């Protein structure tokens, strides 16, 4: 009889079912004569061993199915210097090392390393790219820099690994500005929401008109919550050319979309909305004839036109409705209105007493007016007004009569600071810290450019030393300390070393300063490597 089955198959079938049930016809198999067939099970095992070794020893190579897919595009950027590449390996390993608090400083430094290397236009070694992408996957705040650094190789890898899908959604300036980059709007039409926002934002930065056109092309079909954020993306490259579109958006079905359109229009000083708001503001505030104070007449109602211009008829703040309308009107009016209509510069306007037009002795409007001007200064990026509103660098608070005239904490000094040029921001913050210490400086420091200027750095270190001397706990300053690790000027590192050396041994501050000094040294070395 002939064996039609593959010899291995007949061995396997007998083994599965058992030689008791399915006797093996060993005689018909290759090399059957080489084994003792007295015991069928043993014979089966020996024939199977023969077949296995034959197959392993005689295996033929498998022909390639086809050419491999396309290789990653070439990356023309120069490669990281060797020490910087080692540093990146340490930083990435530190992240992978776990959640322990002792190396939080490495986690603080990784973003800075990435941003610096990216700005220097350097290319990390290919072997570190997967680790870099894993880090960015875990920490979304790293993504833009990490994806830019990973470059075309990162993108090529992400196309193959679903874990790194975010890379394809993270559009970077470098990729968008490639001269050969085709204008490809498929992301806009097919992408996820975040991808679409990024696409629009980047397009606005390079070609605002094209961005507007793209948004306009699909506007009527977008959902309200999407419309809101797309509209927000128009902030980049906002110009009078956007006004007709924004005016139309004032008639949107969604209240939030209307409000956002109004806010954008109010930052366009020449816009029709800004003119309408100026009109209302002029009616609400006038300079008393004596020129000594300002008189406020808040709007009596929130009419349909005001509502269309983005003013909510109901106060969301708990403040009275007329005060709310008043604030909204002044905040949306162009700031240039005030010097023009009164002939006074911001500083003098702010120094004027503020009264009610019906009751000139009331000063209840001063805070509302100031608050509204502050919002306008932030919205319109008006440095003159911001400077005037912040006032000169602070002086120690004095109890008593002068108090009402001292610059009032409007709740947003950090936002006002951000409008000023970097040098001025740092100087103002340094003065603030000298007077008030670090307790309320966190947001102000956050508004300052990094690395901090040497005077600001010195002010922070001095304040830390004072805090240590006063017996405060280091952890009550942990926010500022973390920021200091990232932002302190390298010149100030020596002062921190001194503090570390001088602190009482084994105290919490000794450990704090020691770690800070260590981090600063690490940072200095890391930045030097990237520069070299």
């Amino acid at each position, binding site marked *: 009889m002939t064996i039609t089955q593959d010899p291995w198959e007949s061995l396997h079938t007998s083994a599965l079912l058992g030689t008791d049930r399915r006797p093996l016809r060993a005689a018909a198999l290759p090399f059957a004569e080489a084994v003792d067939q007295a015991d069928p099970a043993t014979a089966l095992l020996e024939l199977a061993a023969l077949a296995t070794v034959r197959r392993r020893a005689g295996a033929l190579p498998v022909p*390639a199915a086809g050419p491999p897919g396309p290789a990653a595009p070439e990356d023309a950027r120069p490669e990281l210097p060797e020490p910087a590449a080692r540093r990146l390996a340490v930083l990435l390993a530190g992240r992978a090392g776990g959640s322990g608090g002792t190396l939080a400083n490495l986690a603080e430094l990784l973003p800075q390393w990435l941003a610096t290397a990216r700005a220097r236009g350097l290319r990390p070694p290919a072997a570190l790219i997967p680790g870099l992408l894993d880090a960015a996957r875990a920490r979304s705040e790293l993504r833009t820099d990490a994806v830019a650094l990973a470059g075309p190789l990162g993108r090529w890898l992400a196309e193959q690994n679903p874990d790194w899908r975010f890379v394809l959604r993270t559009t970077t300036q470098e990729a968008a500005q490639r001269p050969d980059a085709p204008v490809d709007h498929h992301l806009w039409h097919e992408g996820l929401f975040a991808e679409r926002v990024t696409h629009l934002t980047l397009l606005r930065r390079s070609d605002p008109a094209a961005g507007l056109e793209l948004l306009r092309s699909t506007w009527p079909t977008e959902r309200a919550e999407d419309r809101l954020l797309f509209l927000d993306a128009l902030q980049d490259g906002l110009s009078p050319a956007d006004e007709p579109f924004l005016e139309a958006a004032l008639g949107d079905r969604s209240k939030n979309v209307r409000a956002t359109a109004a806010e954008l229009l109010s930052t366009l000083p020449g816009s029709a909305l800004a003119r309408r708001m100026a009109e209302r503001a002029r009616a609400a505030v006038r300079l008393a004839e004596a020129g000594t104070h300002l008189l406020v007449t808040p709007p009596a109602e929130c009419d349909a036109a005001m509502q269309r211009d983005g003013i909510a008829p109901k106060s969301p703040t708990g403040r009275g409705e007329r005060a709310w309308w008043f604030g909204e009107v002044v905040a949306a009016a162009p700031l240039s209105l005030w010097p023009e209509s009164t002939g006074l510069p911001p500083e003098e306007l702010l120094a004027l007493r503020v009264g009610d037009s019906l009751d000139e002795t009331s000063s209840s409007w001063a805070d509302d007016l100031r608050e509204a001007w502050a919002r306008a200064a932030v919205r319109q990026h008006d440095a003159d007004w911001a400077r005037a509103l912040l006032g000169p660098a602070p002086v120690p608070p004095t109890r008593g009569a002068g108090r009402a005239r001292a610059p009032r904490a409007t709740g947003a000094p950090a936002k006002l600071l951000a409008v000023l040029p970097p040098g001025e921001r740092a100087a103002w913050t340094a003065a603030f810290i000298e007077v008030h210490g670090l307790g309320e400086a966190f947001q102000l420091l956050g508004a300052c450019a990094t690395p901090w200027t040497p005077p600001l750095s010195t002010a922070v270190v001095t304040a830390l030393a004072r805090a240590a001397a006063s017996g405060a706990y280091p952890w009550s300053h942990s926010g500022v300390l973390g920021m200091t690790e990232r932002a302190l000027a390298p010149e100030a590192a020596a002062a921190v070393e001194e503090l570390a050396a001088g602190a009482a041994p084994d105290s919490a501050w000794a450990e704090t300063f020691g770690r800070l000094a260590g981090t600063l040294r690490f940072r200095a070395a890391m930045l030097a490597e990237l520069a070299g």
Partner: protein
Amino acid sequence: MEERWSTEHVLSLAPDAASQKAAGKLSAPAPWSGTGTDGTAVWGECKGSGRTPYRTVVELATPAYQCSCPSRKFPCKHALGLLLLWSGTPAAVPAAEPADWAADWLKGRQERAEKRTAPPADPEAARRRAEARGARVAAGAAELRLRLADRIRHGLADQSTAGPWEEVAARMVDAQAPGLATRVRELDTTPQERLLEEYAMLHLLATAATRVDELPPELAATVRARVGYTRDSNEVLAGPTVRDRWLVLGSRTVPMEGGSDERLTTRRVWLRGAKTGRPALLLAFGRPGQAPDLALPTGHLLEAELAYHPGARPLRATLGDRYGAPEAGPAAPPAGLTVAEAVAGYGTAVADDPWLESWPTVLTGVVPVRTPDGWHLTDGHHTVPVRASAVPEAALWRLAAVSTGRPLTVFGEYGHQGFAPVTAWPEGHRPVGLTNS
């Protein structure tokens, strides 16, 4: 001039991730004083929480570590931190003569190494012990053959009546055949489509073990090694040795499988003789909390004597005398094979040692490709699957990244289950270890 090690290499010496982290903290110059290196050793004093600083010395060739700290980790964070400092901030560890305390230890170490002598043995007692063990192993192997045949009689599909293999594995341990025990234990987790192969090859090994004295000496040595006879390294070194400049092709450190609760780590280091072209495999073991004591940087050359363990297809070797510390090897990748040549090479090796799972192989001009049924390496003509179970996914992505989708040289183990990559040589770069994290 000594070559300073890469960060990756230093971190690979760490016994665990926590040590890597702690060492990173100590890799800055601040806590260190009195640091220096003379090219064969690195030393320094590290300020800790106590009054006296810890004194740390690393002898680079072995490497060997000494530190006055009380840590039970080995090497401790101070030794690793010192190496990181030495590797990353050369200026912080200047060339110098060893400090007295460092010199004392280094000298003592050298003296101990020279005093190493073969222990006197009672040949008659040794022979009796060997005979007794041989009989016990043969009995165990015979029992294993019966157990395997028994299961074939009842059918592999019907495992309900048969107990787990663990019990048989324990019998093999009693029979002083730990190699058989390990293979038996693996049967419980072998997928059914490979079960008959594994039964058959284990049966073949057990059969060979029952009549090991009738086999040719080389094959008998292979069978003994696979059954679980170990050889003392002094005994191996007493035999013939091969002196060569050995290129370090790569290394892999894995926690060892096994039933015991203490997880040893095993480090495999693959070498290739520059003159002889012979491959060699060194094994080193570390107790829990300790890194294996042998560490050779990939891509470096080491002039040394190697003693091969006897066998039909010698590969495992013991490192004998060294002539100098490892030095940086050539920039160009080592010569390698096409996929077709690699397949044929493994086939030839299997003809010598039928139980050979894989053979160290350098592939030239291959591209890693991810397909729906897993990773492959292709040289344009032929393709080999990557043995995914032997390599972490991260290593394969690292391989893909360094290839950038272009052909490169890869070292790994090739066998009937596929290729397990260990090292890649990216264009114009030093070799990249794929599995070291």
